[in-house]
């Protein structure tokens, strides 16, 4: 968040601040380690991707990344990811609410169940989802008569991306909901607010930053998802082919530069979208930041 960044800048620039006494020493060491770590794990590999792309001329790059099949895959990947994250924001909030506010038999089990998409190998998830949502699967066969096909369509992609993104919203919203005083809701009710007004004006503003964070995490996870999607998507070019699959396909054809070019585009779009969500978060938490002084 922005205030942290500012503090960091202070620490780096202001000598007096840097010499301030801390209970736990080792600022230089830990910062150095952080930068080294981030470089090795994140920056250098990503930089290499950009570097690899420069092997292409701009015209070549442009034709690779704007091929109709690739454009269709961007639309599907980012579109389905956004829809999945959106669904998760709503139902994850509901799940978190139920887990925080009520006690019921098997609550711990449900709580543990939420984390399962984290732990499950994504291929297993993909196969399971496909088996269930295929035309002859348990749920698929129920939907088939209504003309709803899930497996091997973009809808299947949304289902898979929703599945893998579920824990993010629940786990970010849950602690904030736990901290929320039930008294403020009672106060709102005693002032005449109805249930919707209480939710809209009292609860939602309090959990909004956490909800946005969960949304962003679920979205980011969905954009990069590969394993669970390729089974259920059917991978028809122009229809249900996701961008990570195109990248894999290019790699299998030894078209490394083409693969990295598309990867770079994905990176840039993801980065911009995440930056935008962060900006939104910063903007909405500014009021709280002001009040937290």
């Amino acid at each position, binding site marked *: 968040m922005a205030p942290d960044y500012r503090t960091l800048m202070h620490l780096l620039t202001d000598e007096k601040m840097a010499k301030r006494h801390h209970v736990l020493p080792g600022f230089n060491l830990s910062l150095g380690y952080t930068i080294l770590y981030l470089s090795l794990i994140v920056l250098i590999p990503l930089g290499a991707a950009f570097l690899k792309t420069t092997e292409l001329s701009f015209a070549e790059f442009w034709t690779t990344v704007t091929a109709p099949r690739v454009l269709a895959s961007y639309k599907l990947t980012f579109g389905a990811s956004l829809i999945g994250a959106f669904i998760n924001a709503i139902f994850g909030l509901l799940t978190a609410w139920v887990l925080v506010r009520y006690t019921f038999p098997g609550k711990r089990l449900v709580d543990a169940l939420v984390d399962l998409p984290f732990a499950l190998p994504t291929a297993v998830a993909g196969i399971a989802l496909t088996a269930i949502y295929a035309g002859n699967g348990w749920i698929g066969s129920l939907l088939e008569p209504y003309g709803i096909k899930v497996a091997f369509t973009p809808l299947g992609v949304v289902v898979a991306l929703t599945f893998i993104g579920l824990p993010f919203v629940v786990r970010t919203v849950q602690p904030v909901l736990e901290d929320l005083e039930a008294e403020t809701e*009672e106060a709102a009710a*005693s002032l*005449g607010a109805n249930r919707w007004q209480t939710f809209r*004006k009292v609860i939602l*503003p309090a959990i909004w930053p956490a909800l946005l964070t969960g949304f962003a995490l679920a979205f980011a996870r969905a954009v990069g998802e590969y394993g669970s999607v390729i089974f259920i998507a059917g991978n028809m070019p122009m229809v249900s082919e996701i961008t990570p699959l195109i990248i894999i396909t290019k790699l299998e054809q030894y078209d490394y530069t083409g693969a990295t070019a598309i990867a770079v585009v994905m990176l840039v779009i993801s980065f911009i979208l995440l930056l935008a969500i962060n900006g939104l978060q910063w903007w909405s938490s500014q009021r709280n930041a002001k*009040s937290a*002084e």
Partner: protein
Amino acid sequence: MSIAIRNIHKRFGKFHALNNINLDVPTGELVALLGPSGCGKTTLLRIIAGLEAADEGSILFHGSDATSRDVREREVGFVFQHYALFRHMTVFENVAFGLRVRPRKTRPSEAEIHRRVHALLELVQLDWLAGRYPPQLSGGQRQRIALARALAVEPKVLLLDEPFGALDAKVRKDLRRWLRRLHDELHITSVFVTHDQEEALEVADRIVVMNQGNIEQIGSPQEVYDKPASPFVYKFLGNVNQFHGRVHAGKAHIDTLALDIDGHHETDNTPAHAFVRPHDIEVLRERGTQPAFSAVVNYINAIGPLVRIELQRQDNQSIVEAELTRERFRELALQQGEAVYIQPRNVRVFLDVPN
């Protein structure tokens, strides 16, 4: 608006939180529900507000049954111990909340909302904080804002749950005087919950002393302090010395002493507890004509207008507390470890009820 509470029962599992509570609060009165924690006072307040439902019994507002009325429709203002302000709203928006959530038909215009919110903020003397957020305020300021917010909806009844419980001693004192003045100005029927007897005695028109889900006594501060109806009230309101003895034919026999008491002329040798306030313990250098215990001065605390003395009786080593005025203390010139005589006055006895 008057409040009538009729035969209210409330259980939480096996715990009987409220046991057949009956209480009338006349219009415009400021009533304190006083008792130790867990006595059911907050539960009773929440039932009056409609935040909690009673198992049995009814609540009447101005004679009409409000038992099944939702908290939204009860027209009560509720002030919480921990303020329960909306953190993400400015002070102004907090106070305006109750007006803004009204249905369009009854919602005042923006200009009217402004006027009323500022009037309320002036009433609580915090108009200059309108643009701040709750976390930027001190505890006392927050509670005043919470009060302004509750008053904004023009409630018929004001309910306060330990309103000063989370504040430090100095602010508490200021705020409770301020609340008393505010009540004298607005004359809104108010009920407040407290476990602080000093607060109840200073602020309330009437005090309802509660213990273990029952009402022990209802009366003016003077009445409950001077004529406690039960041993519990005696012990809860202020310091008291407790003696164990027997009552026989108008006298209380405490160990070797026979003390005069009011009434109980017909009582025949019944076990009883006798209570004496510390300021009713006379400390003497010489044995007088009245019956007295001999005791040793254990400890002297001479801070404040009254001098507190802890004495140890010599017959059974039990501790007796006495309070002397400074003049009397100087007159006696007591020192720690000295032997004196103590003479209880205004003894109040409660016969032991076999249970």
